[in-house]
């Protein structure tokens, strides 16, 4: 008997027919010569290498530069599907910002007993330095990358909210650029919503967050930890695309009560800093004194209302994996609406009953560290060896509060291009959301990450995942 689970494939329906959004694409694809596609695929790789679209891998010797494999079969989403998704994401992001405001002010949600106080009080992601601070427009998380997975025709789940510093948007843009160059004809046959406005919108959105006492046109800059950071390419790419300076901590200092960057003509004030440096490292005067990456005193400048930091420090409290399980309640508490997007069922191992269930069913579950990201320190039960399971059991028992567990979802698949033609692989989706006092904007599409190994559910680029261009079709 075949026990292989049946996955929802977004291109080919179970009975072998092609799903509607892929009709035009499939018609084109079936006429292509595989060897031409193969050559195109090679071209794309050479293009990525030459332009330096790489990321640095930690843990390898001297932080090697790697390419994220690009697959040339697009992932296609219909307008109807997207509308629902976008509404759900917007609702969630709105609620998360309201939650962050509340947590750093009156904490009504704790008083109302919706979330246990200990979950915040004992959480390292809660940042005392943010207490009582109100950023412009009450926006805390300006740039969000919500991770979505799909299991069926109408079944979308949010996997993670990524409210701190989501990365990957440069791949969304470069993937589209590559597809446009390789297969221009596809874009006349399919009406695909453009993504290329993202850098322009990002800059507008950031400028709209300037502190109230900023007069004139706000100066925006991106703060990077430097060229050895895994996402450095993206930092420089976004700075370039937006036409703003890419700065490091040592380019910045306090001048006249503001943060200013050292230019060839002297110091120039910065009004909005899109920082890609983690909270801990942001300000050696107020946080980790040993940090070389940050700007001493920036938190004081921030509290004085002389700069806007995006995303705000302390937003991590909203994308903590333990808080995640409460997001549907959070949405309802602040918006008065039922959450449009579903959460994946989550077992909080801090709770004894949940821990027992998790230990009893470890081989069927995915276990994640509460503060982990990027697929590091994660256990995928069904794919784990006996030894890995036993090791993880030890970890769980010694520090249960550090973990949550979720059922292994039957993630949807989209075909990738292989030697033999098409072959299904599991995917997820990270749409990118911009929040400013002027509103919430979601770029149609996002980054589709794909597990390149057959049957694998791990899509993280650091774990051998690839990416695809993501199309949202016009009505």
């Amino acid at each position: 008997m075949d026990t292989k689970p049946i996955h929802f494939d977004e291109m080919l329906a179970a009975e072998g027919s092609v799903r509607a959004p892929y009709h035009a694409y499939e018609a084109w694809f079936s006429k292509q010569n595989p060897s031409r596609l193969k050559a195109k695929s090679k071209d794309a790789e050479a293009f990525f290498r030459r332009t330096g679209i790489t990321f640095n891998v930690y843990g390898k010797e001297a932080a090697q530069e790697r390419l994220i494999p690009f697959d040339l079969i697009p992932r296609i989403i219909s307008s109807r599907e997207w509308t629902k998704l976008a509404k759900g994401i917007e609702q969630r992001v709105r609620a998360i910002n309201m939650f962050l405001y509340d947590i750093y002010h009156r904490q009504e949600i704790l008083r109302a007993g919706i979330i246990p106080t200990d979950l915040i009080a004992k959480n390292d992601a809660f940042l005392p330095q943010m207490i009582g601070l109100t950023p412009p427009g009450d926006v805390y998380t300006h740039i969000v990358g919500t991770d979505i997975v799909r299991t069926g025709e109408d079944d979308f789940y949010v996997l993670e909210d990524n409210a701190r510093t989501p990365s990957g948007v440069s791949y969304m843009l470069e993937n589209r650029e590559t597809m446009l160059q390789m297969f221009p004809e596809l874009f006349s046959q399919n009406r695909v919503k453009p993504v290329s406005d993202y850098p322009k919108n990002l800059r507008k959105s950031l400028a709209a967050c300037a502190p109230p006492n900023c007069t004139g046109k706000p100066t925006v800059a991106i703060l990077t930890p430097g060229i050895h950071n895994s996402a450095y390419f993206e930092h420089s790419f976004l700075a370039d695309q937006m036409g703003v300076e890419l700065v490091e901590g040592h380019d910045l200092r306090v001048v006249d009560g503001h943060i200013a960057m050292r230019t060839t003509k002297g110091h120039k004030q910065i009004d909005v800093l899109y920082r890609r440096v983690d909270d801990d490292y942001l300000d050696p005067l107020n946080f980790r004194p040993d940090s070389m990456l940050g700007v001493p005193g920036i938190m004081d400048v921030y509290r004085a209302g002389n700069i806007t930091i995006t995303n705000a420090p302390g937003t991590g409290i909203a994308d903590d994996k333990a808080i995640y399980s409460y997001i549907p309640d959070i949405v309802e508490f602040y918006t008065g609406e039922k959450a449009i997007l579903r959460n994946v069922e989550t077992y909080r191992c801090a709770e004894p009953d949940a821990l027992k269930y998790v230990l009893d069913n470890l081989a069927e579950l995915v276990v994640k560290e509460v503060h982990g990201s990027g697929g590091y320190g994660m256990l995928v039960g069904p794919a784990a060896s006996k030894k890995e399971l036993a090791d993880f059991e030890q970890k769980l028992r010694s520090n249960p509060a550090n973990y949550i567990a979720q059922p292994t979802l039957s993630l949807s698949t989209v075909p990738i291009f292989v030697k033999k033609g098409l072959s299904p692989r599991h995917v997820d989706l990270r749409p990118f959301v911009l929040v400013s006092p002027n509103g919430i904007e979601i770029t149609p599409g996002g980054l589709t990450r794909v597990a390149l190994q057959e049957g694998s559910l791990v899509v993280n680029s650091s774990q051998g995942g690839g990416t695809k261009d993501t199309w949202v079709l016009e009505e």
Partner: protein
Amino acid sequence: MLGKTAGGLYWMFRFLERSENIARLIEAGFRIALTRSNDTASDWKSVVTTAGVRRGYDAIYDSYTSENVVDFLLRDTRNPSSAITVIDKARTNARMVRTALTTEVWEAVNENWMAMKKALKSPIPDTELPALLGEVRRHSALVRGALHGTMLRNDNYDFARIGTAIERADYTARIIDVKYYTLLPSANFVGSPLDNVQWETVLRSVSAHRSFRWLGDGEMTSSGIAEFLILDSRFPRSLYFASKTLRELLAYLAEDYGERHACHDLIDEQVANLRQHTIRSIFDEGLHEFISAFIRQNNALGAQIEQDYRFNK
């Protein structure tokens, strides 16, 4: 623009120029080695000295063979001025200032790095050497071409070219300094075949052997060569030409920013000093003394530019 960006552009182009100069230096050295049957150690030694890496070399090797010198100058990552090291540094600086470069410039420097990393993976046999050295020079020229062809003529461009000019002046001066004794009009040496080889080497090291012949009457006199390398206003690697270029570039910056700095006084002085001299007065003053002073001035100028335009602080 950020001070760091100005510094990054400046160093990126200094390092690219250095990679090219290393290739020239090896080419010239290799040529001597071919034209002579006996002892070439002293020639290779002067190549290492000109490259300014004697100490590092002596710490690893105890003899000057073409194999060792070529490997050290091209491939050794322990050598801070080896071709592979400076090409890597040029790219690192390019990554740092990526937003200040056009796609063409970035791609050229990135391709240079990819190609050279591959080409310099294993030791270079003598038979492959000329082709490889040509590649090194060609790649550097491609980056320069992309710079000239695609970059806006603004401060980014100025700092990139200032880096090139400072490195050029320094390199030419160091070649003269190492070989100055062969250029002295000593009765014993003038006209001897050995001397001709030495002079030829000096000219080759700055890719000037053909232009020199074209410009002059073809006669290789010590003062003719020295004058060409120091004072010629047409040869792009002469001390005067490089200094004149620097003065021009710094003047653009002063105009652009509406502000003169200490570096402007230094370069004015440097150009005036070269103008005042004839090759005769230089020899009268002492070629070695003159060149040593020039190298010091040029270094001081570089440091002053770094300070005036806030590269580091």
